[in-house]
C-alpha cells in the first residue's frame, strides 16, 4: 500500500461567466507523488496527515 498521508492540493479560481452575472469556479489539483488508486488498495486509508494544506486562490 502506498503512502496515504498525502492528498492532492486543490486550487480554486473564481470567474464570472459569459453572461456577466453568474459565478463559476475552476478547481485544479497538484497531484502528489503516490498513486491515489494505490492508496486505497485494501479499502482502508492510513491515518490523517495533520499537515494537510488546501489552497484557495
Amino acid at each position, binding site marked *: 500500500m502506498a503512502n496515504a498521508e498525502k492528498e*492532492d492540493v486543490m486550487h*480554486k479560481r473564481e470567474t464570472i461567466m459569459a453572461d456577466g452575472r453568474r459565478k463559476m*469556479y475552476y*478547481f485544479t*489539483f497538484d497531484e502528489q507523488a503516490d*498513486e491515489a*488508486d494505490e492508496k*486505497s488498495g485494501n479499502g482502508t486509508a492510513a491515518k490523517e496527515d495533520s499537515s494537510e494544506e488546501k489552497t484557495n486562490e
Partner: protein
Amino acid sequence: MSELRWHPLVGQWVITATERQERTFLPPKDFCPLCPTKPGAFPSEVSEADYDVVTFENKFPSLRPNPPVPAIAGTDFEPVAPAGGVCEVVCYTPNHESTLAEQPIRRIEHLIQVWTDRFQVLGDRPEVKYVFQFENKGKEIGVTMFHPHGQIYAYPFIPPIIERELDQARKHRAETGRNLLLDIVAGEVADGRRIIAQNDSFAAYIPFFARYPYEVHITAKRPGTTSFSEFTVADRINLAVILKQILAAYDKLWDFSLPYIMSIHQRPTDGQDYADIYQFHIEFYPPYRTKDKLKYLAGSEAGVGAYINDTLAEEKAEDLRNALAKAKIF
C-alpha cells in the same frame, strides 16, 4: 417568476420557478452546455478548453442569491417568501461520454474536495440553512443533460426529509442517549447480511428498511462526522473508494450503466450543533427493480408516502455483493 409557497397541509415550502420550463433539454453532444468550449465551436457554459472539476451557478435556478419579490401575495396560512439561495452545477469531468462510476478514485477524491469547498462556502451564506448535494443520473430519473454532473441546492430552509430525520434522531437520543445513525450502521455491520462494502470510515449497505430494491446507504462510522467539514484526509480517500465500489457494483449488476438518484445527507448549516444526533450519509435510489422493470412511485408512495418494496434487502444486498466481486475493483 420564482417564489416559495407554503403548503399548510404537510407543512413544507414548495418552490415555484417558472423559468425552468425553458431549460436545456437533452441537447445533442455537439451542443452540450457542460462540455468545454472547443475552438470555433458552439460556446458552452464552460468557456475554457479543458477542466478538472468545475462548478457554476445554474442558468435556470430554483433558488437565486438575489431573488425577486414574490409575484403573488400569500395569506396567513399560505404565506409566500422570496426563493433565496443558490443552485450550482458540478461537472465531474470534461468527458461527455463518461460517468461518475468510470472516474478513477483519484478524481473522485478531487470531487469530494470540491464538494467540501462548496458545502462550506455555501453553508456560510447567512440565508442558507441547508446545502444539498446530489446527482440525478439517467433518462429514467428525468435528467435533461447526459454530461456527467451533479447539482447543489443551497436552501433557505431545512428540507422536510432532513427535518424528519433530525426529529427521529432527537427522539432516539432522548430515549436512549445514543446517536440513531450510529446505531443503524453498527447494527448493519454486526448483522452483516445487508453490507455491500466497508472500510475504516464508512459502511455501505442496503438498509433493513429499504424502500427501493437496490437502495444503498453509505454512512460515516466515526462519531461526530456530520458533514464533509469533519472529514479527515483518510475519510475522503475512504469515501472515494467505497463510492467507486458501489457505483461499480451498480453498473455490473446487469451490465449497463445503472440510473440513480444520489442524495448526500449532511447536517444543516443553520449554526446549531448536530454532532450528537446526526451522521453524514449518502443514499442511492436506483429506479430499477429488475433488469428491465422500473420501480415507480405510484399511489401508495406518491399519494400517502407509504412505500412498498417488492424485494428483500438481504437478497438484493447479495446481488450487489456478487456484482461487486465481478467488478473486481479490489
